[in-house]
């Protein structure tokens, strides 16, 4: 049986209460909107690139503790990464939260591993990542977790 403490870890709650990079970039190169139609969560991610590197990344929106913390920690993890590194991390993150083994060491993001015991919450944890992915690909259409 999964324990609540597996998902509501101290670091997650702390990020949910005081999310980092919770703002709009003044001059983003790329921006995308995401939503989870089932619970009404919304998220926008904006990215500023410096050549192939993510110079700055920020998010806004409303959502549950998991989605806010995930977005917050994602922005921290991706600053300074290349587009390819960001995509690889997205893949690994999805693999981790869905209980797969095909991911490398996730560093601080490892705190989200417990989500795999709560399948209904996987979409909360991945909403910001899907939106980031759309932003990097210049997605015009809002992304949806459905």
């Amino acid at each position, binding site marked *: *049986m999964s324990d*609540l403490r597996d*998902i*509501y870890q101290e670091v997650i*709650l702390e990020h949910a*209460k005081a999310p980092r990079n919770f703002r709009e970039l003044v001059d983003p190169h790329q921006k995308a909107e995401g939503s989870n139609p*089932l*619970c*009404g*969560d*919304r998220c926008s991610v904006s990215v500023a690139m410096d050549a192939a590197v993510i110079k700055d990344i920020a998010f806004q929106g*409303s*959502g*549950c*503790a*998991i989605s806010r913390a995930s977005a917050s920690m994602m922005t921290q993890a991706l600053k300074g990464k290349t587009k390819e590194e960001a995509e690889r991390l997205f893949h690994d993150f999805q693999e981790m939260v869905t209980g797969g083994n095909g991911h490398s060491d996730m560093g601080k993001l490892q705190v989200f591993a417990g989500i795999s015991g*709560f399948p*209904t*919450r996987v979409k*909360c944890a991945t909403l910001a990542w899907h939106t980031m992915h759309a932003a990097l690909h210049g997605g015009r259409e809002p992304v949806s977790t459905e």
Partner: protein
Amino acid sequence: MSVAAQVVHTHSKVEPAVAFDVERIRADFPILRERVYGHPLVYLDNAATSQKPDAVIQAMLEYYRHDNANIHRGVHLLSQRATNAYEAARSAVHAFLHSELASEVVFVRGATEAINLVAQTYGRVHVGPGDEVLITAMEHHSNIVPWQILCEEKGATLSVAPIDDRGEVVLDEVQKLLHPRTKIVSITHVSNALGTVNPVREMIRMAHEAKAVVLVDGAQAVPHLRVDVQDLDCDFYVFSGHKIYGPTGIGVLYGKAALLDQMPPYQGGGEMISSVTFEKTVYNKVPHKFEAGTPDIGGVVGLGAAIAYISAQGVDAIGMHEHALLMYGMEKLSAIQGVRIVGTAREKAAVISFVMDGIHPHDIGTILDQEGVAVRTGHHCAQPVMDRFGIPATVRASFALYNTEEEIDALARCIKKVKEVLG
């Protein structure tokens, strides 16, 4: 008659066979013996779907084991038995809704399909450019989108009667929005997100004065209230079987015979015809005109059993029990600091929507689930209601005839745990 039964009798217009005994009722629902993460199941998501009593499960099982055949065709015995079972369920719905005729009861997949049927048949004939369809701001998406589709196709306007801070429809605004171009008024009897019981009888009278026809979405009403479509004088009334302890995938459209008769069919196929040649098809009479194809016979049998079950307990007795739970729940939850109840209408069914300071409903739902308490979290397919109250979502606890005060205590206890974990 026992003393207890006499007491119930004095409070109730119907005569339940025995006194309302929630423990006896709980024993009728096998799923209530499930355990969730090691806790007893506390099922408070009845507005989404209700659980099924043994009587319903057995009726469907028996139908498939002994009577299964196609209906209204075939001279063999099983076909007759299946037809009889199907039409007996129609009669049960006819009695349940107090319609004038059994033929005013059309079986559909659910309330959603019933609304779409009316929009696409009556609506497409009677709504034209510049006309209006009036709904309220508390409608479920299923009573918004079919009208948007119709209005878009016809160049008509969808107008929306506002609701106040309690979650009650503003009748003065309804009056102002009704005018000669208003062709259809489609309103919910009970709000799924707020629990508000609308004054539909009054609203129907107002709409009829403006010469509009009225559809009432009864999906959330029939589990809790006695419904008399002739007394209401509504033109259409729709509900879903699964919210009144019947199976999913079956529902009812009630329509006044005079309206159903003149409406074009919704779908073409078998059953809905009298005769077919390549030159001309003569449609069957109502209700068969609207029941193209082999229907969900097993589902109809289950719905009939569900109505028999409810009737045996007594709709009024159920309503009283649920109202007591509502009062108890409102008091218990209001007393918890940080909890705000959304939807405080004076007339309210057994639905409590709430939010908590600084804690998202989704997180509340997960923590309650871990304690065995099943609630709905989200926008409840009523995003305009959420927008009206400036919130993305709520937690909704909705009660049924088998719920108890102890279960509401468990809910309150778990909400306190939510504050411990996330507060």
